[in-house]
């Protein structure tokens, strides 16, 4: 495993930016900033005419590190330890699970908890629990 340093101020600031984005998206489009929902609806079947807006939002997500590199000349550390087979399994589970459970860390964890949704609380506690359990099994069961 790769050691990382505790960054409470940067993380709190980043969290505030994420929250601002969620509030602005609600103000502009009337929709929840749930990234899994936005990404999944880029694929058929299409149920509304919001495709272009969703694509623009995802393009913004991808453009963020590009902008950071342009402005500051560097990017913060990003360490992806998993190899291709694990990434593929993890990706399929993440994609399937977030659609099956109607949301991910942003839709349930941020927007849902802010709205005091019981479903989002159950969802958030569940993915936190299985995420913690998975890391525990991988790192400490040997």
């Amino acid at each position, binding site marked *: 495993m790769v050691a990382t340093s505790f960054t409470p101020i940067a993380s709190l600031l980043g969290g505030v930016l994420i929250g601002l984005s969620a509030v602005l998206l609600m103000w502009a489009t009337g929709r929840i900033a749930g990234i899994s929902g936005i990404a999944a609806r880029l694929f058929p079947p299409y149920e509304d005419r919001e495709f272009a807006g969703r694509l623009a939002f995802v393009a913004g997500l991808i453009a963020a590190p590009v902008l950071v590199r342009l402005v500051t000349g560097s990017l913060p550390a990003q360490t992806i330890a998993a190899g291709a087979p694990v990434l593929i399994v993890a990706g399929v589970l993440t994609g399937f699970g977030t*659609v099956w459970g109607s949301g991910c860390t942003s839709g349930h964890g941020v927007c849902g908890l802010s709205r005091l949704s019981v479903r989002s609380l*159950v969802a958030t506690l569940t993915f936190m629990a299985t995420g913690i359990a998975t890391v525990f099994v991988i790192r400490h069961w040997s």
Partner: protein
Amino acid sequence: MTILVQFAIGLLFGLGLVVSGMSNPAKVLNFLDLGGIPAGTWDASLAFVMAGAVAVTFVGFRHVLKLAHPLFAERFSVPTRNDIDPKIVVGPAIFGVGWGLAGFCPGPALTALGFGSTSAVIFVAAMCAGMVLARFIAKLQSSTRIAAPVHPLES
């Protein structure tokens, strides 16, 4: 105009992910690693991401949802369900395993594409496949429910 605004809002979300450290899977996995507390390798940073995001959203939603309608839409589309069905447990349980395996959830994985990482491309491609599969099965189930009473023994 709507498109530009949504791009800017997505950009802001992505900046939050980069600044907060959530776009680094190593940080996410060290947060989920409660077993690392005794050794001092636990990284509590992500609790601060959640705290910052939830605090702003909690206050912001309260104000925004008092408006007659959103800027670019006729009405707010806010989920209203409050029943606990199996899907709201099974889905997140599956997602959590994927999250714990790679350290990516959907937002940070998409933002990681902008870092130019090949690993992120592999993860996102697999994630999209998982999403399409889940939507396909959900659609199949909803159409089976309608068709089921006709030939209940044939399936």
